[in-house]
């Protein structure tokens, strides 16, 4: 048992200091009828590192990893190249095996990273302030709806049909218990977003309008008219960004009037990881900072006058406010925030813009190539690195068939919106810097064969 340093001699010595005759004496408060007298039946005993690695390796090999195939999936999680130094640095034990920085004198490393992260995120999203991260984009989105309710004292949120359906599901789950009214419909296969319809739906009961940018079909639109309409009615605009690399190429939601901007930070530094852990981004206007959920890091000075950083405004949080807290959130996504921040520091503004330009360029090439396949129509007018193709048959079947041929073709709208069969022929295709010209040709050829 390689992780347990006590020897039997140690154990005996310690028991005698305690004044107990056996380890069982320390468990006397467990009701006798519930005490387990030996190991639980049916479970294997301890195993060597080699044996465990072998077992887990065998399971890992049963998966088709993104790097092994032409890969075009997005819809809220994106494959990007993560520089080697990111993973090296986050594995430094001083980061990896530290706790939440509750003792700031010996946690300045984590705290300075969080301060830098908050600044990077705020600038990327175009908002005044950002927090130290949330669990993921979907929970950040729900927390934004709750925050808008607290600020406006209204309970009706309009969710764009272009919002990720899983984010909608999460919000629906929570709203059942909080009493928020959520208005939402499945998207239609239109070239443009539903912003005009959203503007027409805003009324005096609306707490916020939640719009994804780029949206689930990859469409992009100026949010300024929506922000103006929301503000005119006393409502807030919540913008959701699931692909933050896009903000190296397109305007920041905060600069188009969004009051709260949330997002999924996975695509910078974190990796795919089958959906988690991911990184919730959360930013807002300065005037709403005390209504924000989650941890915040702030600058201060120490007793000797040196600059330092601490967790702050914790009077919003559960460990102080208990049932009156702005959220029950305790853990954030610290290590993922570190990975994001390191990757962003490596990129810098110049690298981020180059990365975004490369993504867009390849996506345009792919869209134009795929649109030439008989039976394929490109839906979008505008897009960043993700777009929707309308096929002549159900895209779920096409995706499954292509997977059997070793091509991960994209995300079908049938998988995302099982209750909306009318859009089942839609296929959402993401193209990042990891896609090669050969990958695009493979997908085009396979689609051509499948749709013939």
């Amino acid at each position, binding site marked *: 048992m390689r992780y347990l340093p006590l020897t039997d001699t140690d154990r005996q010595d310690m028991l005698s200091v305690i004044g107990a005759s056996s380890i069982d004496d320390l468990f006397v408060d*467990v009701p006798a009828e519930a005490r387990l007298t030996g190991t639980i039946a049916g479970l294997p005993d*301890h195993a060597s590192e080699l044996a465990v690695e072998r077992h887990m390796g065998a399971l890992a090999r*049963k998966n088709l990893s993104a790097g092994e195939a032409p890969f075009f999936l997005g819809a809220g999680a994106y494959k990007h190249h993560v520089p080697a130094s990111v993973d090296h640095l986050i594995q430094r034990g001083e980061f990896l095996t530290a706790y939440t920085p509750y003792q700031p004198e010996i946690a300045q490393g984590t705290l300075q990273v969080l301060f830098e992260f908050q600044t990077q995120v705020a600038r990327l999203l175009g908002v005044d302030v950002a927090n130290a991260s949330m669990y993921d984009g979907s929970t950040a989105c729900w927390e934004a709806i709750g925050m808008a309710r607290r600020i406006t004292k209204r309970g009706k949120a309009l969710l764009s049909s272009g919002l990720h359906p899983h984010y909608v599901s999460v919000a629906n789950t929570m709203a059942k218990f909080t009493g928020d009214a959520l208005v939402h419909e499945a998207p239609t296969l239109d070239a443009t977003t539903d912003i005009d319809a959203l503007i027409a739906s805003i009324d005096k009961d609306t707490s916020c309008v939640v719009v994804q940018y780029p949206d689930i079909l990859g469409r992009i639109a100026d949010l300024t008219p929506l922000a103006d309409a929301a503000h005119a009615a006393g409502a807030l605009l919540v913008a959701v960004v699931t692909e933050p690399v896009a903000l190296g190429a397109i305007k920041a939601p905060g600069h188009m009037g969004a009051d709260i901007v949330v997002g999924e930070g996975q695509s910078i530094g974190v990796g795919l990881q089958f959906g988690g852990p991911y990184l919730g981004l959360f930013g807002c206007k300065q005037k709403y900072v005390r209504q924000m959920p989650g941890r915040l890091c*702030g600058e201060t000075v120490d007793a000797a006058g040196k600059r330092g950083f601490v967790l702050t405004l914790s009077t919003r949080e559960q460990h102080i406010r208990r049932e009156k807290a702005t*959220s029950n959130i305790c853990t954030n996504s610290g290590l993922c925030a570190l990975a994001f921040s390191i990757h*962003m*520091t490596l990129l810098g503004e110049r690298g*981020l813009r*180059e990365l975004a330009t490369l993504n867009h360029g390849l996506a345009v090439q792919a869209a134009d190539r795929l649109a030439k396949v008989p039976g394929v129509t490109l839906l979008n007018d505008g897009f960043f690195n993700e777009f929707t193709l309308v096929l002549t048959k159900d895209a779920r079947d096409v995706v499954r068939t292509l997977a059997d041929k070793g091509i991960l073709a994209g995300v079908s709208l049938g998988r995302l919106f099982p209750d909306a069969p009318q859009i089942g022929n839609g296929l959402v295709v993401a193209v990042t810097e990891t896609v090669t010209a050969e990958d695009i040709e493979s997908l085009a050829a396979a689609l051509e064969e499948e749709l013939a």
Partner: protein
Amino acid sequence: MSMLKEGRPTTPVPVKEAHMAPQTATGNRALMLEEALIFEIGSTDTTGVDFAAAPQVVSRLGSLARTDSIGLPGLSEQETVRHYTRLSRQNYAIDLGLFPLGSCTMKHNPRLNEKVARMPGFADIHPLQPQSTVQGALAVIHELAAWLVTLTGMHSVAMSPKAGAHGELCGLLAIRAALEARGDARSVVLVPESAHGTNPATAAFCGYKVEDIPATAEGRVDLEALKARLGPDVAAVMITNPNTCGLFERDMKTISDAVHAAGAFVYCDGANFNAIVGRVRPGDLGVDAMHINLHKTFSTPHGGGGPGSGPVVLSEALTPFAPLPFVEKQGDSFALVEEETAEDHHAQTFGRMVAFHGQMGMFTRALTYILSHGADGLRQVANDAVLNANYILRSLDDVLDAPFGGSGPCMHEALFSDKGLAEGFTTLDIAKGLIDEGFHPMTMYFPLVVHGAMLVEPTETESKAALDQFILALRSLAERAKAGDEALKGAPYHAPRRRLDETLAARKPILTWTDPALAIAAE
């Protein structure tokens, strides 16, 4: 003085007062290097990443191209490695020493777990890939789920919650859904005063009124008071067991029976499962729902504040209401039950809690850890965790007040109070003194039911030598605080920073960096 012939001294001059720590020009102190912010050392035109040239295309961004200066500084790769390496050295960590934060279970994080989580078959798969291409990942979730269900003696487990508090939310949502399904709207959740702050926050988030349960003088739930309060308005009781005073709730089964008789459910905060894994199954104590912090009991790294992972084990009564998605074995293969397929046989689900399937990267680590320990090793984990805590309790209860020292053995954490310290000396002084002694402080001022609480959780991964050194340090600090050693009030002296001004930080929050030149121009 001995000297080589070229004049280089080879033995040090004995240190005199005049040689003590002069200021350096840089502010650095040898290996302790000050590090500026990336905004002060980077530039928006510097990058540490090379890309292939982008193809020339006609933009599809329309009028939305971002033209402002974003203000994101870059560093070369070497500067980046150095920046974060320097910052890392300003952190305390388990890898450096004992990290006795009560309730947080800061145990060793085995590196095999990290290696496994980074296998491309786990790290580089997309959550929405066709299920035929992720059978190994689904198998991991299923295998881990089976371990968690068996170790807890429960009926099922919801794997998707992202952290402990998120797991609490999952449990309470399942309870509320179960009550509503039987047309039984209830409004109150009972929570002990000693509970983690997340418990009342979660109950309130789910729309419940929170009421305190009193404790007895020996630090356990007051069974009679609890029974008297139970009634048709009580939806659930949230109990932490072992509790935050470090004690096992002896009456747990009786409590559960009384709660069930009153038509309510028992939620158990499983933050302290490390003390009892392999020794007792919560299912045998009548628990209906309990979250398991994989980042505590099952050793996934805390990462400076997450990511966590909080699967929730459920009783048979709550299982039909578990969230989507979940993994099911169907013949020889594994299926992910999502919205599309749930209607057939999971129609009562309360819905989805997260975008995808939970913390896969934590599942691979936790399963690796569990398989390494096995059933026998996990039982030994609880044994050693409890042994270590009792050893600390009994080695120090002559110099520090142990408010519940007479209430039987503690479980995996030892609780002390500030009673008996000299006038004006506090738990904070002892905590900061521990920093100078080379330890992370214990959890301080929690649980709230004890004045000046110091909650020490050594975990099972500490050697006797490490415990003895910690005991030596804490004993010395307790003696200094009792003797009124004023120097203690200035601690820490040897950390990267002295005590920080938290009041200033909250009164004038500076949450992002602003270029001083721009700030002056704006004024």
